[in-house]
C-alpha cells in the first residue's frame, strides 16, 4: 500500500466515536452569524444592511477580487446586525447576523438544474466562484482559483483527497459513504474544469468501505482510479498526498500546480456538484461533532453560521468539558467559547472533558521531531534558533516552509510546542525581512 516516504506519526484514530452515524441535516437555528472572511484571500464585501430581508441563497457579501468568494444567506430572514468581530485566526472582519424567519424561502430562480456536460470549463469555474465554493478540507482556499492553473503549468492529474488523516474527524468519510454519486460527479466536473483526463481518489486504509464505494462509483470511467493508502498522519496534507500517490515532490515555496497536480477534498467535490448541477451555493457543510465530551457524536449537515453552542446542545455535551477545538486535534484551533460560528472551513467540533497540561521540558535532542517530520525538517534546530532569536537562520533552516501539521509536536517527549514556536517565528521573520529591506 502506498504512503508518503518520510516521517509521519500514528495518533490514536478515535474515528469509531462518530463514523457509523450517517449524515443528518440539522434544523435551522434561529440565529446565524456569518463572517465575510471564511476563506483564504481578501474578505468578501457586505452588500446588505441591518433590517434587510434576505432570501435563502441570496448573496450577503460579494467577492472582492479574484482570490475571494461571496457569502450567501443560509436561510431566509432578517439581517439583525452587522458587527466587527475576530474570527478564530484572530483577524477582525464584519460578521453578518441573520435572524431566521423559519420560512426557508429560496431566492427565485437560483435552484437551477444544469447538465454539467454541456458547460465548458470557464462556465463551470464561474458557477463555482459565484456559489462561494472553497476547499472544505480546512484551508478554505477558493476552489475556482485552484481550478485555474497558470497557462505555463500544464496539469495532468487531479487528486481527490478522501484521506481524512485527522483523528476523530469522520465528515469526509460520511460524505463518501452517504453522497458517493454526488462526489463522483463533482470530481468529473472538476476534471472538466481543469481539462485533465486522469484523476486519483486517495482514501486511507481505515476507511475500506468508503474506498470501495468510491471505486465502484467510478469504475466505468477509465481515467479515474481509486487508491488505498496506508494510514499515517499527515497523509492528507497536499504535498504528502501528492508524493504518496505520484512520487512527485513539491519544492518549498511551490504549489501542486508546479508538479502538474491539483488536489481537491471530497467535501469540495460535493459542494461543486451541488453548485453546478443544482445551483445551490455553499450554505451548509458536513461537520463532525465528537470527542469524549460529546454525548452523541455525530456527522451533521450544518448551515454555515450555526454557533458551536447550538451543535453541542443538540448532541449533548459534558459540563466538565475542558477544551473545545474547531477542526481536528492535530491542526484544529482551541476555542475560547462556544459562541463561535461554524464557517466554510470547519470540518469538526471536538469537545474534550480531559486535557493533560504538560509542562514543557528542555530539548533532550532525541531527534524524534526530525525523524517524524514529513518534510525532513530539522525542527529541533529550528526551535533552537528561534529561542536564540537567530532570525537570519530561519530561511536556511526552512522555518518558513513548515506546513504546521503538528507532527513534531505530537511526537516530542518533552512536550515542547515546537509548531507554535515555528508559527510565531514566521511572523517574526516577515517583520525582520521588511525591516531589512527598509534599511537597504
Amino acid at each position: 500500500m502506498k504512503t508518503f516516504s518520510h516521517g509521519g506519526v500514528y495518533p490514536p484514530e478515535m474515528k469509531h466515536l462518530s463514523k457509523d452515524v450517517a449524515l443528518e441535516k440539522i434544523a435551522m437555528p434561529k440565529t446565524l452569524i456569518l463572517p465575510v472572511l471564511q476563506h483564504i484571500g481578501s474578505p468578501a464585501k457586505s452588500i446588505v444592511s441591518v433590517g434587510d430581508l434576505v432570501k435563502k441563497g441570496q448573496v450577503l457579501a460579494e467577492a472582492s477580487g479574484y482570490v475571494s468568494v461571496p457569502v450567501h444567506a443560509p436561510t431566509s430572514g432578517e439581517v439583525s446586525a452587522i458587527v466587527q468581530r475576530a474570527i478564530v485566526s484572530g483577524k477582525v472582519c464584519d460578521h453578518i447576523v441573520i435572524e431566521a424567519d423559519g420560512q426557508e424561502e429560496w431566492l427565485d430562480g437560483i435552484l437551477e438544474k444544469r447538465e454539467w456536460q454541456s458547460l465548458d470549463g470557464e462556465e463551470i469555474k464561474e458557477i463555482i466562484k459565484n456559489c462561494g465554493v472553497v476547499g472544505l478540507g480546512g484551508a478554505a482556499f477558493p476552489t475556482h482559483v485552484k481550478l485555474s492553473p497558470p497557462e505555463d503549468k500544464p496539469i495532468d492529474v487531479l487528486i481527490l483527497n478522501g484521506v481524512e488523516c485527522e483523528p476523530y474527524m469522520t465528515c469526509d468519510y460520511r460524505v463518501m459513504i452517504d453522497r458517493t454519486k454526488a462526489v463522483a460527479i463533482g470530481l468529473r466536473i472538476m476534471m472538466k474544469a481543469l481539462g485533465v483526463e486522469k484523476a486519483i481518489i486517495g482514501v486511507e486504509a481505515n476507511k475500506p468501505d468508503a474506498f470501495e464505494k468510491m471505486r465502484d462509483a467510478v469504475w466505468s470511467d477509465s481515467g479515474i482510479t481509486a487508491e488505498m493508502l496506508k494510514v499515517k498522519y499527515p497523509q492528507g496534507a497536499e504535498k504528502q498526498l501528492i508524493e504518496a500517490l505520484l512520487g512527485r515532490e513539491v519544492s518549498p515555496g511551490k504549489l501542486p500546480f508546479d508538479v502538474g497536480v491539483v488536489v481537491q477534498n471530497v467535501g469540495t467535490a460535493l459542494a461543486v456538484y451541488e453548485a453546478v448541477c443544482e445551483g445551490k451555493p455553499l450554505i451548509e457543510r458536513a461537520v463532525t461533532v465528537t470527542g469524549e465530551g460529546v454525548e452523541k457524536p455525530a456527522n451533521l449537515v450544518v448551515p454555515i453560521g450555526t454557533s458551536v453552542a447550538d451543535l453541542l446542545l443538540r448532541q449533548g455535551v459534558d459540563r466538565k468539558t475542558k477544551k473545545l477545538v474547531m477542526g481536528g486535534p492535530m491542526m484544529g484551533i482551541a476555542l475560547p467559547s462556544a459562541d463561535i460560528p461554524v464557517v466554510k472551513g470547519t470540518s469538526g467540533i471536538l469537545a474534550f472533558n480531559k486535557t493533560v497540561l504538560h509542562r514543557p521540558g528542555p530539548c533532550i535532542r532525541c531527534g524524534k521531531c526530525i525523524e517524524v517530520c514529513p518534510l525532513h525538517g530539522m525542527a529541533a534546530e529550528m526551535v533552537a534558533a528561534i529561542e536564540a532569536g537567530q532570525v537570519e537562520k530561519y530561511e536556511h533552516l526552512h522555518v518558513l516552509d513548515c506546513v504546521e501539521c503538528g507532527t513534531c509536536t505530537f511526537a516530542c517527549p518533552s512536550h515542547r510546542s515546537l509548531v507554535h514556536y515555528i508559527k510565531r517565528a514566521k511572523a517574526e521573520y516577515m517583520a525582520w525581512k521588511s525591516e531589512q529591506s527598509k534599511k537597504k
Partner: protein
Amino acid sequence: MSEQLFDGKLVVGPAPHVATKDSIQRIMWSVIIALVPALIVAAIYFGYYALMVVAVSMISAVLCEAAIQRFRGVPVTVSDGSAALTGLLLAFTLPPNVPLYLPVIGSVFAIAIAKQAFGGLGFNIWNPALAGRAFLLAAYSGQIVMTKWPILSNYLFGNITVDAVTKATPCAILKEAPLTIFSHYSLMDLFIGRIPGSIGETSALALIAGGIFLIVKGYVNWRLPLSYIATVMIFTVFLPVSDGAGGTIFLWKDVVLQGGWLDLVRISTAEAFSGGLMLGAFFMATDMVTSPLTGKGQTIFGVGCGILVALIRLYGGYPEGVCYSILIMNTAVWVIDRLTVPRFFGVKGHVSKDA
C-alpha cells in the same frame, strides 16, 4: 451562552491537542529498567558490594542534582530519572571493589560539572557519566585502573576477596597477546559475563537484552550501536596487533592463512564482548543529549567511536578506549549534525530552484 454549557473555563492552547505518551521521565526510567539485567549479573558475580557502589552512586547523583537545581532557583526535576541514570551508568563503569567515596566524587563531578554547569539536561556536551569516569580515571587512576581484579563469587550476594586472585581482564589480554585469549576465557564466559571487569560492563548477554528492549521501544536507534560494534570488530582484527612477544602481526593474515576464518571471527567477537563496549555502545553512546540528531549522523558517530576504540585498545596507554572514544565523539557532534542535515522535502540537490 457557552458560559451556561460548561462548569469551568475552557483551556486554550496551541495545536496539536493530542500528544505522544512518551516523556523524558518514561525514556529515562526505561533506560534504567533496561540496565537491570546487567545489574543482576553484577550482583551474581560481584556480590552485594557492587550493589552498594551502585546505590551510593545513584543517591549522590540525585542529591547533587537536587541541591544544584535548588541553588540555581530552577524547578527540581530529579523525578525525571536522568540524574539517577547518570549515577547508575557511572557506577557501572567502576571496578566492583572500588572505595565508596569514589562513586560519590564521580557522581558529583558528573552532575555538577559535566551537566548542571552547562545548563542541565539537554545542554551538556559530554555524557555526564563518562565525564565522571574520565575525571576519576585522571584523579584516582590507582583505584580505577587496577592490576588486581576480584575473584568472582559465583553465587548470589557472595563476598568478594580482592587479594586472592590476580587475573588479567580480557581487554588486557587482547592488547598484549590476542591469540591467547581463549586459553584464559571462553567465548561463553565473555558472553554471559563470567569475567573480571567493571560492575556493569561484563555481561554482553544482559546488555544486549537491555539494548534490544530500548531499540524496540524506539529510544535507541539501532544504527548507532550496530555501527559502533561492527567498526570495533572489523578494525581490531584488520589493524596490526601485538603478537605477545614484542612484535606485531596481522591477525587477518596470520590467522586466516592458517585456515582459521572462524578463529578470526571468534577473536573479533571476543573484542566485541570484552571491556565496556556493549555498555558503551547500547547505553552511553546512545545518550540522546550527546549524540547526533539524525540516523545518518548516529551512524557516523558510531563508526568514529569504533575507530577510536580500536586505536586506543591496540596502541593506546589504556587497555580500554570506550570511555574516551565516546567523549571525543561527543565533542564532534555539532560538526556531524551540520554535515548530516537531511535533504528538505522537494529541494533538489543543493541547488536552490529559485535561482
